[in-house]
């Protein structure tokens, strides 16, 4: 039986079809079927900190940070069409500003973190504004250069701790706040983005991707929308940076490390570009993986990049789309 006589056929599961209509409300089975993935995600995020040991709790926090960065990246790349290669810039900005406010001016962290999120977002967006009028390539180039530029600026001017960084920043009060602050932020961002892209804002962004001339001819200022989108992503990144500086109690040049730029991208590609939840899953897979490979040092960046390339070339749909397919459909071979 040669391949041309058989083909793979995908059929929706019966429960998928039954769950489509409003009558799903009347069936526990169907409601569970629909809500299970979402509930599982939220529940596992909330429960894990309770069961993990101290070391893995820190890893969990890191994974949540990467997940938020991946969300920001996915949003910008798939919904706005801007590939941000320098996510570490936002981490660095948020971390340095919050740490700086805390260290030099004695601001308490519940003040410095929000302030740093906003300030970092403003600065980051301003730095990127000049290229938002132009095609996406420019954004990729500039976003790539900015973290490296900021690092050399800090070294050149020897401010803010230069190469050593600053330690002895205030830590977060206790382990539970550490965990649930970031989880709360992650869930907020995840569901917030979901909401945003289905609302008018998302429709306009989609329109910009489909046909930007028509959007301009409809009276919409594309640059303004891009600025808003970048500001949103920048807020998220800066918050993560600010949080990070108080999680470990120090700030330093490693906040601008390539890790923060590449892991979210790898997580997004692996998880499924454009799905928003996929990057989160990708981040929670990659971060523990990278933790486990800590002994290999720089090899990890190579690993993320290779994984990224593998997925983008051979399985571009990503993990989430794959899982979704399996969940909602089944396959069988059929004679043609």
């Amino acid at each position, binding site marked *: 039986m040669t391949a041309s006589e058989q083909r793979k056929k995908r059929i929706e599961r019966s429960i998928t079809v039954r769950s489509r209509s409003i009558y799903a409300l009347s069936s526990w089975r169907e409601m569970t079927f629909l809500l299970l993935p979402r509930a599982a995600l939220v529940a596992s995020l909330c429960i894990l900190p309770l069961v993990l040991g101290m070391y893995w709790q820190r890893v969990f926090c890191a994974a949540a940070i990467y997940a938020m960065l991946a969300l920001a990246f996915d949003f910008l790349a798939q919904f706005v069409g801007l590939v941000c290669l320098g996510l570490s810039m936002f981490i660095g900005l948020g971390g340095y500003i919050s740490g700086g406010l805390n260290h030099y001016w004695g601001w308490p962290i519940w003040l410095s973190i929000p302030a740093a999120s906003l300030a970092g977002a403003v600065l980051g967006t301003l730095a990127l504004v000049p290229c938002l009028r132009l095609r996406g390539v420019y954004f990729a180039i500039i976003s790539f250069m900015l973290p490296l530029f900021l690092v050399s600026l800090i070294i050149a001017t020897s401010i803010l701790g230069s190469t050593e960084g600053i330690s002895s920043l205030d830590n977060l009060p206790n382990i539970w706040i550490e965990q649930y602050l970031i989880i709360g932020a992650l869930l907020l961002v995840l569901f917030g983005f979901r909401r945003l892209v289905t609302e008018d804002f998302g429709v306009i962004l989609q329109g910009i991707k489909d046909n930007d001339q028509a959007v301009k001819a*409809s009276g919409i200022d594309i640059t303004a929308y891009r600025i808003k989108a970048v500001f949103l992503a920048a807020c998220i990144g800066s918050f993560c940076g600010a949080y990070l500086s108080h999680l470990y109690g120090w700030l330093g040049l490693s906040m601008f490390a390539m890790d923060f730029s590449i892991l979210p991208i790898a997580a997004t590609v692996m998880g499924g570009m454009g799905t928003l939840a996929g990057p989160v899953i990708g981040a929670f897979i990659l971060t523990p993986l990278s933790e486990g490979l800590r002994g290999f040092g720089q090899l990890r960046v190579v690993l993320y990049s290779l994984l990224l390339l593998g997925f983008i070339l051979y399985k571009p749909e990503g993990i989430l789309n794959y899982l979704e397919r399996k969940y909602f459909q089944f396959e069988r071979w059929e004679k043609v």
Partner: protein
Amino acid sequence: MAGELMLAVEGLWKVFGGILAISGVSFNLHRGEVVGIIGPNGAGKTTLVNLLSGFVKPDKGSIRFRGERVDGLPPHKIASRGLVRTFQIMRPFHSMPAYKNLIVPLNSPRVRKTRAGALGDLDSVAIDILEEIGFERDARVPYKTAGSLPLGYLKRLELARCLAMQPEVVLCDEVFSGMSMSEIASMIPLLEKMQMNGITLMMVEHRLRELFKLADRVMVINFGEKIADGPPALVMADPAVKKAYMGAEGQQ
């Protein structure tokens, strides 16, 4: 019918590389008029629309919309003032349902300002607009993916996009192209209704017979220059126009 002066164009020049696309075009447009823009292929008609709508900046000359200069402004600002255009090559937001296409113009600053709080649910406003222009609500046409609609509907969708902006002047770039006579016949009432609602129309067209049913006035553009401007009958009798369309011999 000299109403308000909507568009005053003076001495418009545009050069692309080595090609003189528009040279010294001037005209006026008053409220409620339907003016046709005709001319042989490549004469510069679409360039003219691009210049008026801000997609191309003129090298020389001025464009005044209701008294204010708009040449040099980016397209979204010009559209926000009420000067909107259709696109000759139809590319709707193909991945969305038809009515979602209208969400974009309904979110523009112009609509936000004029309709302010009275808008309510944008989705239903969008569907109402589509129904008015002939998308049968019962047949669920407004909910179909824009990319799957046949040409006649796409043309209407394009007009709907303009109408959603509550425009003052609509520049129609070959809205009749690609449609059969009966389809055009069903679109003409729509355009007439727009005119009755106070919208000024400027229509670039090749389908002269259908255009002359609507237009009070016609301008002929040839090689970037305006060579005639007047009522259709007079313009078509003009020897210069005949020469431009038919060639030097004046053959049919």
